[in-house]
């Protein structure tokens, strides 16, 4: 990976971010709903007080001016003050981001760790019972929404069996010094194994729920490309070399079959970040998704704008990682 290509990536990010910012602004301008009115709600306020509030939120300036100011400030990583939190948006987002990323990554790992072996097995035993069960199971994963599985898992593991917690990230007797914000890492850094276990227990159900639809899709993709790859000459040649079956499957076939899996995973991971609102709600997970959705309904413009930029950057970043993975899986591709 040359420095040049890396730079190019970064330069390419600029139009994406500009486009995204512009669309947010335009969308917000076109969409009815007045932040001040929402904030005040039903409580009494005089017109003068209302104007004062509007001024203090910076909403009395024209849209174009606000857009310009936003761009100028965003260039310095200043995204303004959240209407509701009385603090810089960057701080508010930064508090929630690690939880979201941690959950998404674990969900991704769960999804990959189940989807890939299942997809491979389904491909090897095409039309076997396992293949069919995996197919039905994977479609079940996308046919019923997250809350359905989430509540089901909660009832099973938290209420009836009482072996996993209903919600939250970690128990309240565990105090963890925030270093990275990722509890799994911070607990280990603190050498607190009990806390690590506790954090892990809290992660299990939400990660499974979040990872499920992705598992379904990745499993199908892996199965399909595995079937394709298994017909290739190099797989036959690997067989001709008398390699153990496992090696033929996982080293020769799978490595090539994973190429489409990786690109689909990159797309879907983008939606993990944006789409885990339901899981965050069901499991009381203190992530960004919930915050952003709330902000959208409340027309908390500064937070929405910053979050949208963050999503875009994350998305491009993910694709960048996927590209690097590509070159590992497929040496013919050069970045």
């Amino acid at each position, binding site marked *: 990976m040359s420095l040049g290509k890396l730079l190019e990536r970064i330069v390419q990010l600029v139009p994406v971010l500009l486009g*995204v910012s512009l669309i947010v602004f335009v969308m917000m301008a076109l969409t009815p709903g007045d932040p001040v009115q929402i904030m005040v709600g039903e409580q009494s306020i005089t017109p003068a007080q209302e104007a004062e509030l509007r001024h203090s939120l910076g909403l009395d300036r024209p849209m174009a001016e606000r857009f310009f100011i936003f761009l100028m400030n965003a260039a310095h990583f200043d995204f303004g003050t959240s209407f509701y939190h009385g603090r810089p948006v960057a701080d508010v987002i930064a508090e929630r981001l690690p939880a979201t990323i941690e959950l998404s990554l674990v969900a991704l790992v769960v999804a990959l760790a189940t989807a890939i072996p299942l997809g491979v097995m389904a491909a090897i035993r095409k*039309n076997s019972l396992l293949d069919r069960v995996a197919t039905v199971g994977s479609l079940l994963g996308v*046919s019923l929404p997250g809350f*359905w599985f989430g509540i089901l898992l909660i009832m099973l593991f938290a209420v009836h069996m009482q072996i996993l917690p209903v919600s939250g990230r970690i128990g309240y007797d565990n105090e963890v010094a925030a270093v990275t914000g990722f509890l799994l890492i911070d607990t280990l850094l603190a050498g607190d194994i009990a806390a690590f276990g506790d954090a892990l227990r809290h992660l299990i159900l939400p990660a499974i729920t979040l990872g499920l639809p992705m598992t379904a899709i990745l499993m199908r993709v892996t199965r*399909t490309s595995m079937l394709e790859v298994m017909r290739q000459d190099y797989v036959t040649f690997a067989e001709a070399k008398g390699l153990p079956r496992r090696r033929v499957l996982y080293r020769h076939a799978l490595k090539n079959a994973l190429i489409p899996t990786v690109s689909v995973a990159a797309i879907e991971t983008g939606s993990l970040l944006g789409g885990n609102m339901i899981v965050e709600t069901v499991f009381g997970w203190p992530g960004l998704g919930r915050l952003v959705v709330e902000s959208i309904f409340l027309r908390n413009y500064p937070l929405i704008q910053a979050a949208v930029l963050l999503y*875009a950057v994350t998305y491009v970043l993910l694709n960048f990682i996927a590209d690097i993975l590509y070159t590992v899986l497929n040496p013919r591709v050069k970045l």
Partner: protein
Amino acid sequence: MTDAAILSVPQAESLFRRNLRDFRRNRLAMASLIVILVFVVMAVAAPLIAPQDPNETDLLRRLQPPGWAPGGDWAYALGCDGLGRDILSRIIYGARISIFIGLAVIFLATGVGILAGLAAGYFRGWVDVVISRVVDILLGFPYLIFAIGLMAMMGPGLMNIVLALAYKEWVIPCRVVRGETLAVRELEYVEAARALGAGPRHIMWREILPNILSPVIVISTIRMANVIILEASLSFLGLGVQPPTASWGSMVSDGRAFILEAWWVSTFPGIAILLLVLAINVASQGLRDAFDPRFSE
């Protein structure tokens, strides 16, 4: 030179018929086709089949359990929802909306995605840059904001739902198609077609597309379930199907509140989605296998 007299050119139609025969031999695929047909018939003949009026509320039957459970009534075989409406009848009527939305969105999105992905992958250069950046923007953009904005601009209506959902969906087939096109366009048979004077349209449609379709089909059929469910979240914002019209997605999402007390409210429509998507998935796979020459068995 061979004597022209002994030339016997077989009829071309036999090809399609042979593929069809192969498909028919695939029992699982046939079963799926039957399930799909049942759903379609159900949708079309809903008024004849549905045991109850799907919109008839009766608060006295609120959250009545399914027929076999204690407190159930076989006249309301799958139980009743929060307003005492018959879930079975609503599933039957909901098939109209959900199947339409599912299919329309997937066809539209896949179509657009294929066009854009083919163009990006085949022409590369600035076409690719523009399409890829647009895809990046859309994928990196929280959908809810769009949905609210679209709601404000378009308002409710079946066509608007389809557009609003397709808007989100097309990027995924587009990405897949673009990637595959980049690989396939370098193959020699593509070059051969070019050597014969084939233009980009022919090459994209006839040479490249058939060879990259299978991953697209797999992803699209799976995403259909997603689309049917997503419709509900749009209706929550006022963009989707408006009450009391039943749709599977909104039935599933309406049941969310009662999931602990009345699991049947969201589970049965969820199972309907599952069955439909499963059937379409298996059937499309069977179709693909039957029409993919390399799968001949």
